[in-house]
């Protein structure tokens, strides 16, 4: 039994030639809308307890509309949403706070709005007060609060009771970093106890860190539902998509999915990793000097050519990335037909594990405006520890030790 079942969901905003025709429909009189604008259609997915799902998509893709229908503020035009528990949303923290009331009174009001009885709120009040950590301000009027204090109280009350589904907006990056850690900790605790998370974000890192599944919305429909890495790669390709750009997705031998996108005005011919003696390597020892060789071919006249690469860990989290724009060595007006070989020489000061390299050809400092080719999973290599003392983590930063006793 799924916690949340969304079936054939669709939402249309109806415009009538005259508002009186709309009013007539309330009284079951027949009248046709002059225009129907579908913002969402044919949405199908379900969520299991404890799952964390990221919802991504460009502005206007229908993310908020979908979330509003899940929380129940908007009614679907067609289809149905079946929810097997309480939903809490951390979308607009501090919504409905009255500046003339104290923090405590506002907590009462906000928790009441969430549907809790006076007795339940009174029971949770000490926890809320303790979690917000704003001291005596809790009994001062909210207008004297800093915005951070208001967020603390708002978050404390929004998460005072464990919901079955928690909707988190990317706007959660408010407040100081101490409280951010604390709030993420609470969200994680909820998840361990079986709460499902629905996270809306543009932040690749947050999605990949928190979610075990992602759903990509585009033009009101789900165009991808799968592993966060795969979906985020596709999303990345999508936001750089131009008129004549193409996005291809192919399954690699190991089962992972590679996304290649771009206008193909310049293309990546080969990507390889070499050791100091020039041999192609797949296994690299911690700290070894290596060379990432990329050959790019210019196919059409372009104003400038910048190449960038990004090393990601096995979870897809960025470890290191740079490009020739940042390194002040971009090529201006390359000749069509020219092939350029780049060699990026660096020491593999990485922790033990598997890493992937994404390579992109573009103009300017990022791939959003002009993307010639973006290739995810262009190369995969493994770092092994054969010469160093044992250590943990993503980076190799050997210290020297001084012991004073």
């Amino acid at each position, binding site marked *: 039994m799924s916690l949340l079942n969304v079936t054939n969901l669709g939402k249309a905003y109806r415009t009538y030639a005259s*508002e009186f025709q709309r009013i007539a429909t309330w009284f079951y009189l027949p009248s046709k809308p002059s225009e129907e604008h579908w913002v969402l259609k044919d949405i199908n997915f379900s969520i299991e307890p404890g799952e964390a799902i990221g919802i991504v998509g460009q502005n206007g893709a229908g993310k908020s509309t979908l979330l509003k229908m899940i929380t129940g503020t908007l*009614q679907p035009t067609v289809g149905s949403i079946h929810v097997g528990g309480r*939903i809490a949303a951390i979308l607009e923290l501090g919504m409905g706070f009255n500046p*003339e*009331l104290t923090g405590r*009174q506002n907590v009462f*009001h906000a928790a*009441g*709005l969430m*549907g809790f009885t006076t007795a339940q709120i009174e029971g949770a009040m000490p926890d809320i007060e303790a979690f917000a950590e704003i001291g005596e301000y809790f009994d001062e009027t909210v207008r004297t609060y800093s915005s951070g204090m208001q967020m603390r109280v708002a978050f404390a009350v929004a998460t005072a009771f464990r919901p079955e589904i928690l909707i988190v907006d990317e706007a959660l990056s408010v407040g100081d970093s101490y409280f951010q850690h604390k709030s993420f900790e609470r969200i994680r605790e909820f998840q361990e106890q079986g709460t499902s998370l629905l996270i809306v974000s543009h932040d690749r890192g947050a999605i990949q860190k928190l979610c075990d599944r992602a759903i990509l919305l585009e033009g009101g429909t789900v165009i991808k539902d799968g592993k966060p890495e795969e979906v985020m790669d596709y999303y990345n390709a999508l936001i750089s998509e131009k008129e004549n750009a193409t996005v291809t997705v192919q399954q690699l031998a190991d089962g992972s999915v590679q996304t290649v996108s771009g206008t193909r005005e310049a293309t990546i011919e080969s990507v390889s990793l070499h050791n100091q003696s020039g041999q192609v390597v797949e296994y690299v020892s911690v700290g070894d000097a290596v060379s990432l060789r990329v050959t790019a071919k210019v196919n059409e006249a372009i104003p400038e050519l910048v190449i960038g690469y990004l090393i990601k860990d096995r979870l897809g989290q960025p470890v290191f990335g740079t490009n020739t724009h940042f390194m002040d060595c971009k090529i201006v007006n390359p000749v069509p037909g020219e092939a350029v070989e780049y060699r990026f020489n660096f020491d593999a000061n990485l922790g033990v594990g598997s890493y992937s390299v994404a390579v992109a050809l573009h103009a300017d400092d990022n791939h959003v405006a002009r993307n010639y080719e973006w290739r995810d999973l262009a190369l995969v290599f493994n770092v092994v520890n054969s010469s160093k003392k044992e250590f943990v983590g993503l980076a190799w930063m050997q210290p020297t030790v001084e012991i004073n006793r």
Partner: protein
Amino acid sequence: MYGMLRGLWSYRGFVLSSIRNEFVTRFARSRLGGLWMIVNPLAQVAIYALILSNVLAAKLPGITNTYGYAIYLMAGSLAWNLFSEIINRYLNLFIEHGNLMKKMSFPRITLPVIVVGSSLLNNALLLVAMLLVFALLGQMPSLLLLWLIPLTMAVVALGVGIGLILGVLNVFIRDVGQVVPILLQILFWFTPIVYPATIIPSYLRGTMDLNPMFSIVSAYHDVLVYAKAPDLGEIWLTATISVCLMIIGLFMFRRAAPEMVDAL
């Protein structure tokens, strides 16, 4: 309808605390705080009394008290204040709470109920203040005051009915919000609050009877000024109309609620 009531019941704590909050915030940062709710209508009564008492006081039949006109004014404004407060607040209720309705999921019916509770509280305080003034002016309260309970309920039903219909319409047709205050002003002067019903020319009486507030305000006058039981025949008709309007209002509210969030 059953779902609406169940939602309301489970949110009863929220409704009560909201009414209390509205009351408390009135006291915030002003010296007299909630007293202003009483001072305002009483000041209005004082102004009318000062300006019009010589012109109109003589025309109040069957009143011996020298302050009869002031008492008459207060009785009428007690009813009118409740009526106009509910309508004025309902008119913009959904627009004001648009953001909340878009972001939070809660039974929408709580919003109009909170307004009714808050208005009733104000009205009760105004009544207490008026009874004090009545006593000072030599008019002692009697058991007839109990009539005010059903009369108040009739005013609330009428206000809720008209207010809900107008409030829902105002979400879609914003002109409603502009035209209603004007219509309310006209209705005020077509209700015998400032002047006695007896000065209305007979050819207008038929038209005036169409005004549902006419019979209610007259009943308030009977109870508070003339110390007699109101004319049940007319009140029944008005009460029935009020309840019908309230049912229509609730029906429209329920049907329009999903689209209301789209339009806000």
